[in-house]
């Protein structure tokens, strides 16, 4: 089911508006309670839970699918970038609560070595099929083996309709 915003909890910070991949979390016109976010187009909602995970107030919620969380149930999610875990809570309407914890990342955030920190690749490698990190001279061979080569069939000459 698409996400929805609880207006009393929403502070209008716009984190969900910023992150929504479908661009359907929008601001209402500012009223006396200030601006609020809302799901403008529930039919285009993929239920990707990004608005729920990124809301600092817990104001965005999603009712779970009817098959595993019937009416009265709830799905809650908390994503923590410090402990690198995502915590899921499934509440059933008969009171049963199930908790799940999964790791989201094995390294700290911001720790990726950018490509510019690798030694500059030799120019002649541009003519080879190697990509970055596939040869000793290209930032180490991450493939683990020699790049498989096979004479690939010649590209079929495409028919260009005039």
């Amino acid at each position, binding site marked *: *089911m*698409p996400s929805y915003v609880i207006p009393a909890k929403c502070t209008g910070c716009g984190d969900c508006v*910023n*992150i*929504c*991949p*479908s*661009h359907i979390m929008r601001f209402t016109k500012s009223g006396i309670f200030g601006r609020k976010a809302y799901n403008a187009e*529930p*039919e*285009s*909602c*993929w*239920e*990707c*839970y*990004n608005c729920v995970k990124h809301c600092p107030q817990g104001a965005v919620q999603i009712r779970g*699918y009817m*098959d595993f969380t019937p009416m009265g149930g709830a799905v809650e999610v908390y*994503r923590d970038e410090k402990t690198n875990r*995502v915590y899921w809570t499934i509440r059933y309407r008969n009171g049963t609560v199930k908790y799940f914890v*999964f*790791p*989201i*990342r*094995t*390294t*700290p*955030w*911001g*720790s*990726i070595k*950018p*490509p*510019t920190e*690798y030694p*500059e*690749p030799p120019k002649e490698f*541009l003519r080879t*099929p190697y*990509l*970055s*990190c*596939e040869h000793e001279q290209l*930032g180490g*061979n*991450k*493939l*683990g*083996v020699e*790049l*498989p080569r*096979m004479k*690939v*069939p*010649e*590209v*079929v000459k*495409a028919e*260009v309709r005039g």
Partner: protein
Amino acid sequence: MVRVRYVDADILIIGGGMAGSGAAWETRYWCRNCRIVLAEKANINRSGAVAMGLSAINTYLGLKCKENTVEDYVKYVRGDLMGIVREDLVYDYARHVDSTVHLFDEWGLPIWPEPKTGCYVREGKWQIMIHGESYKPIVAEAARKALGDENIFNRVMVTHLLKSPSNPNRVVGAIGFNVNDGTFYVFRAKATILAAGGGSQIYRPRSQGEGLGRSWYPPWSSASSYGMLIEAGAVMTMMEARFVVPRFKDGYGPVGAYQLLLKTRISNAYGQDFWKPHIDEIRKLYGGKGNYVDLPITPTTLRVFAQRLEWIAGRGPSLMRTDETVKKARRVRQ
């Protein structure tokens, strides 16, 4: 009045999904002094088909552990698509997949390790299991570090490619607009990489009303990759192959973990086998050259066709027998 912004660059990347992020990393690696810009219609941290995360990587050959060869993979793809395939293209991407997955592993994507062999836990023959909630943010971080945040244009939807007036076979940029404030963008670039999304909901989904977005592929993929390229006069290849995923009741994806990892049985609505009653008919229709019906892994298209025939015969929908799997798991635990 419409604000217009001109952006000049050496390389323009259109689309900031997995492909665009990978292109950003690779272009920066090879060209240290280029100005590379990336236009993305959502936020690069969570955009594209991997926005919500994934539980498996569906192609990992395992060349390092000698699990498969690239030739095996090409044969498998050829069988699954029943021959409608450009083998050179499949071979070319398959041989680079492993090093990409090893890079993801180094960047911090939690892939299930196999302690005995030092490889990864297999979901199926080609798939590996991951904890992929932050799959896209991790890859986006690599792209952002490669390009720098000032060169990434979030919420800019590119609509048309620009062609050179002197050479009609050359793309020299693209135009688009900011979906929030309507600013008109003109990108001028020496080279353009188009990595926008595929098309979803070209056919009406079975889900209705508020469940309309409950599809396997994201509803925001508007086929701009195809549209822009066809309009620019590019030669499209492999457009004959449609990807139709098997569907089961209450599931909106291929349910790979249940199907491949836990070997869950698939049945029709009455608990019977969905494949055997139709095998003669399917063999009569598709049993010709290539012998695709009797492959060790039945082509997805034929499995979907058999499920469809069950529907027509009044024995639909197909069920993923999770109840049997849960019972089996309980028995094992006891």
